[in-house]
C-alpha cells in the first residue's frame, strides 16, 4: 500500500492551482445547477467544496480519508464547469477551464490507491473485471451473450467502422442497439461489431479504479486494431466520453481512431437524404439532453435536428442551457452508491417533463433511460421514456422484432 502522506502530497502538487482558481473565486454559481446539490442541499457536495478541500489538504486541515464520503456525491454531469465564471469569462483568454469532473475522478482514484474503497463500487468493478461487461442489474451477464442483441441481423465482425454497444444497451435495453444497427443498415452504412467487446472501462475510471479501466481500454483497442477498425460509432454518451477523453490520455498519439457519436451520424444521414423518416409518430415529446452530450461535449444540435425530422411528432423543446441543471442521476457511478438520491434526481427530471404536458420523453443516453422510465411510470398520467434511436427506427418504418425496450 503506498504511503498516504506521499500520495496526498503528490495529489496536492498536481491539483492545487486548479483548486485555487475556484477557491479564490468563491462565486458558487455552480451550486444551483448541480443535480446532486439540488436534492441534498449539503454544502459538502458542491463543486466549490470539491476544490476548496484541496486547499485544505494543502493547509494540513484535511487528510485523504476525510474526502471519501463527499466525493461520492457527483454524477460527473459537468454542469458546474459550464456555469463557472472562470470558465465562462477567462476560458478563451487564458485557456482555463474549471475541471471539477477531473478533480472528482482524481480524488476517487487517490482514495482507491490509498486503500479507501466504497463497497458497491468495489463489487461493481470486481464483477466487471470478472465478466468483462458491467453487472447491469437484474439481468444475467455472460460474455458470450454480449452480442445477443444483434440476433438475426447478420452483422459482420470487423471492418473499417465498428459499432460499439454499451453494456446497459447490450444486456438490458437491447432495443437501443438493435434500433441503431437497423437504422444504420437501412441508410446503407457499412459497419461491423467487435470480435469480443468488453466494457469501455469508463465507469471503473469514474469510480477510481484506474488500472482496471486501463485494462478494458487495452483490450478494446487491441480488438479494434485486429479487425482493422478506423472509425468507432458510439451509441451511448458515456462511451463517447471514454473514447474521446480517457483513451487518448492512455494511448497518446498512437490512438488514431475516429470516434463518431450516433446522433451526429444519423442527423447527417437524414440531411443527406440517405435515411428517410416517413412513418408519422403522433406523440407529444420533449427531449432529455444527456449530460455527457450536452454539457460535456456540446452535442445538442444533432438530436434536435433528428427530432424535428420525425413526421407527426409534436416536439416541446427545453433549451440546452436550462437543461444544464437537469440530470437523470445515472452517471458517475452515483446511483450505484446512492440510489435514493439518484432516484430523486430522476424524479425531478420527470417532473420538469410533466410541466410540458408531454406523453413521451426522448433521451439519447441508455443509462438515463432505466431510471427515467421508472420515475415516468410513477406519474399520473405516466410519461413513457424512449431512446432517440428507437424513435428514429419507428419513423423509418423499421420493426425491431419484439426485443426488450
Amino acid at each position, binding site marked *: 500500500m503506498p504511503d498516504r502522506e506521499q500520495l496526498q502530497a503528490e495529489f496536492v502538487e498536481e491539483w492545487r492551482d486548479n483548486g485555487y482558481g475556484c*477557491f479564490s473565486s468563491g*462565486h458558487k454559481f455552480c451550486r444551483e445547477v448541480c443535480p446532486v446539490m439540488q436534492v441534498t*442541499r449539503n*454544502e459538502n457536495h458542491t463543486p466549490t467544496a470539491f476544490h*476548496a478541500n484541496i486547499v485544505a489538504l494543502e*493547509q494540513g486541515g*484535511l487528510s485523504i480519508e*476525510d474526502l471519501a464520503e463527499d466525493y461520492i456525491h457527483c454524477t460527473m454531469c459537468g454542469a458546474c464547469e459550464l456555469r463557472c465564471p472562470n470558465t465562462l469569462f*477567462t476560458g*478563451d483568454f487564458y485557456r482555463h477551464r474549471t475541471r471539477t469532473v477531473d478533480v472528482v475522478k482524481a480524488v476517487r482514484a487517490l482514495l482507491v490507491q490509498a486503500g479507501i474503497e466504497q463497497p458497491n463500487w468495489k463489487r461493481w468493478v470486481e464483477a466487471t473485471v470478472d465478466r468483462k461487461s458491467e453487472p447491469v442489474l437484474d439481468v444475467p451477464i455472460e460474455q458470450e451473450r454480449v452480442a445477443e442483441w444483434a440476433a438475426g441481423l447478420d452483422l459482420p465482425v470487423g471492418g473499417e467502422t465498428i459499432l460499439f454497444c454499451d453494456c446497459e444497451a447490450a444486456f438490458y435495453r437491447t432495443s437501443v442497439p438493435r434500433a441503431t444497427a437497423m437504422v444504420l443498415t437501412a441508410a446503407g452504412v457499412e459497419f461491423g461489431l467487435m470480435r469480443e467487446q468488453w466494457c469501455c472501462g469508463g465507469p471503473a475510471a469514474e469510480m477510481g479504479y484506474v488500472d482496471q479501466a486501463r485494462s478494458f481500454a487495452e483490450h478494446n483497442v487491441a480488438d479494434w486494431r485486429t479487425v482493422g477498425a478506423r472509425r468507432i460509432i458510439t451509441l451511448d454518451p458515456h462511451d463517447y466520453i471514454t473514447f474521446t477523453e480517457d483513451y487518448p490520455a492512455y494511448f497518446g498519439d498512437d490512438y488514431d481512431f475516429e470516434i463518431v457519436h450516433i446522433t451526429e451520424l444519423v442527423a447527417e444521414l437524414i440531411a443527406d437524404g440517405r435515411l428517410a423518416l416517413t412513418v408519422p409518430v403522433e406523440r407529444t415529446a420533449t427531449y432529455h439532453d444527456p449530460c455527457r452530450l450536452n454539457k460535456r461535449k456540446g452535442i445538442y444540435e444533432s438530436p434536435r435536428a433528428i427530432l424535428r425530422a420525425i413526421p407527426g411528432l409534436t416536439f416541446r423543446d427545453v433549451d440546452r442551457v436550462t437543461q444544464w441543471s437537469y440530470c437523470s442521476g445515472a452517471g458517475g457511478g452515483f446511483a450505484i452508491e446512492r440510489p435514493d438520491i439518484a432516484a430523486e434526481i430522476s424524479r425531478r427530471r420527470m417532473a420538469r417533463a410533466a410541466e410540458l404536458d408531454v406523453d413521451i420523453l426522448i433521451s439519447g443516453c441508455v443509462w438515463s433511460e432505466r431510471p427515467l422510465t421508472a420515475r415516468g411510470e410513477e406519474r399520473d398520467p405516466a410519461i413513457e421514456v424512449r431512446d432517440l434511436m428507437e424513435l428514429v427506427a419507428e419513423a423509418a418504418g423499421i420493426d425491431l422484432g419484439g426485443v426488450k425496450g
Partner: protein
Amino acid sequence: MTATALDDPVLEELRQILGGDHVLTSRTSRFNRTRVPAPFPVHRWSEYLPDVAVLPTSAEQIAEVVKLANRLRIPIVARAGGTGLADGAVPLRGGIVVDVKLMNRILDIDLVDRTVTVQPGINMLKLNEELKKHGVFYPDDPASYPCSLVGGRIGTSGWSLIGGRYGHTRDLVISMQLVLPTGDIIEVGDGGGRKIRKSSTGFQLKHLFMGHQGTLGICTEATLELVPRAEAEFAAFFGYPDFETAYRSTGALTKSGLATLAGVVLFDEQKVDYLRRDDEAYIPQPPELRSVIATAMYGTLDEVKPAARRLMRIARETGGDYLGDEVSQGDWASRHDRYATPLHGRLRDGTVVPMCWHCEDAAIVYSALPDVRREWHAIAERYIEGYGIFDDWGMFFYTNGPYKPWGDYLVEIDIGIWEQRLDDETWAAWVECKREIAEVSLRYGGSITACHGATRAGDVELVPLEMGGGFEVMKQIKRALDPNNIMNPGKYLLDQAYEDG
C-alpha cells in the same frame, strides 16, 4: 462564557431534534462552512471552524436548536448561501452552524395581494424560475443572484442592481418569521400583518432584523414583494474620454426623472484598464475610451421606449458614445458572471496569478465621489507597492437609493489579493488597508458599507464611530434580545454589550 467544544450528549440532543442525517460533524462539513468569498486568512483556516453543522428543515427545529444553544451557552451562527462579502457567516468561536439550505420551499404565491412567501434557503434565480410561470418576479438582483439565498440577503440587508426601480432587499421583504436568540418564534413586519407594506403600529421592527449579520436571530420565513415581469428591458452602455466627464454624465442621467431607470453604473479609468486586460468586450475599444457608464431600464413598452430615447439623448449631450447593442445587451445579460474572476490578477510585472477578489464597498454621496475615488486609489497603490500581493482592479459607482437613482452611490474598489501568499504580516497589512479605506468613507460623510456589512476586521473597529450614539442602542438591544451572547458572538464588537454587567 461560551463553550466551544461540544460533547456527545449535546450532539445526541441535536440528533434528537434534527435527525442524525442533518447533524454533520465531519471535518469537510466544518471546513466548508467556515469561509465566505471575502478574503480570508487561509493560513489560519482551522481557527474558524464550527464544532458542528446542522441542516434544519423547519422553524421549530431551529427554535429547538437555539434553545439548546442558549441553555448551554453554545455559539450559534446562521448560514444561508455563504456568499456574503462580509464575515457574517464565518464562525469566530466555533459552536453550531445553522445551515438553512434545505429550507428552500416556496410556501405561498399570492397573485391577488402580490406576495410570495418562502423559506430562507431559496435562491432568487430559482424562485424566479417558478414565478415566471405566473408573469411575476422578485426583483432582488445582486451580483450573486445565481447563488445567494433569501436568508442571507436579509441577514446582510442586501443591495440590488436594479434597486433604483424596484428597491433593495429591505424594501422587497414585506415581513418575516424569525427565531430569536432565546428560541422564541416571532413574526415582524413594518407593523403587524404578513402582507402589509406600510404600517404605523409599534416600532419598525422589520428593519431591526435586517443586516444584523446573524447577531439577533435567524430568519425562518419571508414574505416578499411580487412585481409584474417587465415587458421591456433596455440596457445601454456609453463610453467617455475621462472619469470626470462620465461622472457629470452620471449625475445628469440619475437626475433625469425617468422612473423606469433601474440603475446606473459608472466604471472609472482603472476599472476600464482592468477590463482591457482580458475582456473581449473591452479589448477592442479605442484607447480614448477611458470611462464607461452602464444603464438599465425596466417597465412597460409604453414607458421604456420613449424613456430610452431620452436617456440616449442625455448621455450623448453629456459626452457619452453609445457602445453598441452587442456590448450593451451582452454585458448587461452577463452582469452576474463577469464581475471578478481570480485569473484577472496580475503582479506589477504582468505575471498572472490567481487572486481572490476583495470588494470594499461604501455608501457615498454624489458630491464626494471624485475625492473618495482619488484617496482610495492612492491607498491601494501604497499597499501594492509595499507588499507585492495586491492588485487594483478599479472602481464601480452604482446608484444606491431605493426607487430613485440619485443622491448616494454604492462605491466599490475591487482589490485582488494573492491568497496563496498570505501570512500574518500581509494579512495584517490588508486589514490596515481596509481600515484606511473605511476611514476615508467616514471622513466624507459616508457609510462604511452599502450592502456587505461591516463585520470584518478593518471595518468593524470603525462601526462605533459611524454609528455614534446609535452604537450604544445597538448594544442595549443585543443584550436585551440575546442575554447570553450566543448569536454569532464576536461580531460587530457586540461583546462590549456584556462587559459592564
